């Protein structure tokens, strides 16, 4: 089980690297989704999956009676998914606004911040 998860996670990471290096913002988003899921799988594998019994403690007992699944990695993954989703939404909007303003999704063509002549400074201060 762990071997399969490790191979799957590695394959996803390799694919995501390929996508991210594609100089195209939309490809980068797909790469990012793949990479974050690959890392989530890795955390899942870290919890040693395999025990089918849910981590419940029966009434009147203070400890689980038999070996149970480790629920902490799932809590970690859940947190990572929620945060990752928020970041994804932000990055979608950021890339969309960038596309509207700069008119390109090719990262090679995006040179506004690092042009040799100065970029436009922050907006003029509004006088009170």
């Amino acid at each position: 089980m762990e071997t399969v998860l490790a191979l799957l996670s590695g394959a996803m990471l390799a694919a995501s690297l390929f996508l991210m290096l594609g100089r195209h913002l939309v490809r980068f988003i797909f790469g990012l989704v793949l990479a974050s899921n690959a890392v989530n799988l890795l955390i899942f594998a870290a919890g040693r999956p395999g025990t089918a019994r849910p981590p419940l403690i029966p009434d009147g007992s203070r400890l689980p009676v038999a070996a149970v699944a480790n629920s902490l990695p799932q809590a970690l993954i859940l947190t990572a998914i929620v945060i990752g989703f928020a970041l994804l939404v932000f990055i979608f909007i950021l890339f969309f606004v960038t596309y509207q303003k700069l008119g390109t999704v090719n990262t090679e063509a995006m040179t506004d911040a690092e042009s040799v002549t100065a970029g436009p400074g922050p907006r003029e201060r509004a006088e009170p």
Partner: protein
Amino acid sequence: MNGLLAAPIIIPFVVAAVALLGRRRLHFQSASAILGAAVHLAVGGMLLYRVHHHGIAVLNVGGWPAPFGIALVADHLSALMVLITGVVYGSVAVYSRAEITADCLQRGYYPLLHILVGGISGAFLTGDLFNLYVWFEVMLMASFALLVLGRTRAQLDGGVKYVVINLISTLLFLAGLGLVYAMTGTLNMAHLHLKLQTVSDPGQVAAVSVLFLTAFGIKAGLFPLFFWLPASYHTPPVAVSAIFSGLLTKVGVYALIRTFTLLFPFGDSGVRDLVLGAAALTMIIGVLGAAAHSEIRRILSFHIISQVGYMVLGLGLLTPLALTGAVFYLLHHIVVKVNLFLISGLIRQWGGSFELARLGGLFRTRGLGALLFFIPAFSLAGIPPLSGFWAKLILIRASLDAGHFVLAGVAAVVGLLTVYSMSKIWNEAFWKPKAAADRQEAGGESRVSAWMLAPVGVLAALTVLIGLAPETLYQMARLASEELLDPSAYVYSVLGSVR
């Protein structure tokens, strides 16, 4: 009493909520920001006082005991970082009152600023690795939004690069964290200190530690992972640049110091050589990049990188003196760097541009301004008796003591090259006469708001104070480095008798 530990995190979030409630009342927002920052600063001072007099403070959040729940821990390093965060927070909150446009304010500048500070304080105080990841994310989200708030082309372009590389860094961190959990079954940093020593294969631990080195190296701006920094830091409003330059990369440096003293002490795995090499190259490349630029904020951005090299050099040497130097450097640098960015905003007000070619003659018209620039600029370069001189002296001395003569040489030469870039700004902006063609457009305003001058003056005074009486800060840094080099007190405070 240990609730004090949560206060630096809670206060900014409360102020953020208050600022959101008063969305349309901009004066109310800026007043609450200044008040909130003042309270944050006071709490930081109380925390340092407590840690200094009563030892390491621990708060088990929600009452869950240490290795199971999330612990907040404040040792000298954490408390010092929280205090300096308060100083930067206060300066930027005051400066923002005059600098940030109403447009940005309406888009939620202040709530984002508070959330950023809350995330930073959380990262400094947490004693749990996964919690550190969460604070990093809080901090990043706020910084992403602050960076592109003005929606100019340059901001969006810089923002894309900043967001992309930081997300990758976060994923590396998360992967490293998962692997550490797989090896040890715990995420509490004090517990990890004990557990990681018992892992049977030290090669695995070293491999995972490189994941952390890369992840935090990206955040800190280490060579060769720094390219996002000069691409983005000069694009947002000056107040935002200032808080980024002062605190964000330093969270990376803090995380490096914490992980490589507590979790992965350098054995004979070669990771230490990697860190030292990266530190030397970071110093050199940063300062050369600065020499090549002629826009004030881009010069300053490259200097952040070069200065991060010094701090990481102190971590790599890992002698008591070197680590003291790293902590001293970290604190001195935050004050100086934030101040330089704030002054770049003043220079723009006076001269109408960030471009050195279009500036000039400020020494004649702005004598006080010239003095205010002179103090942090030449402190950064390490001219005695300013604070940077002591920081560099400690680190160079530590390199010599450790027998790393080449590294000591690099540190000294990079200091000289820093003088070159700072004198370049000085010559171009202050000393040379303003070109006649530019004189007509005159650009700058005759009066600069006191809201912008005051924080610059206070930070400059702090730099002079550290320079004239370095002993207090030196002792604090020495205590912090002692705690870092011998984590048994830290581990005992967190875990008690649990072994």
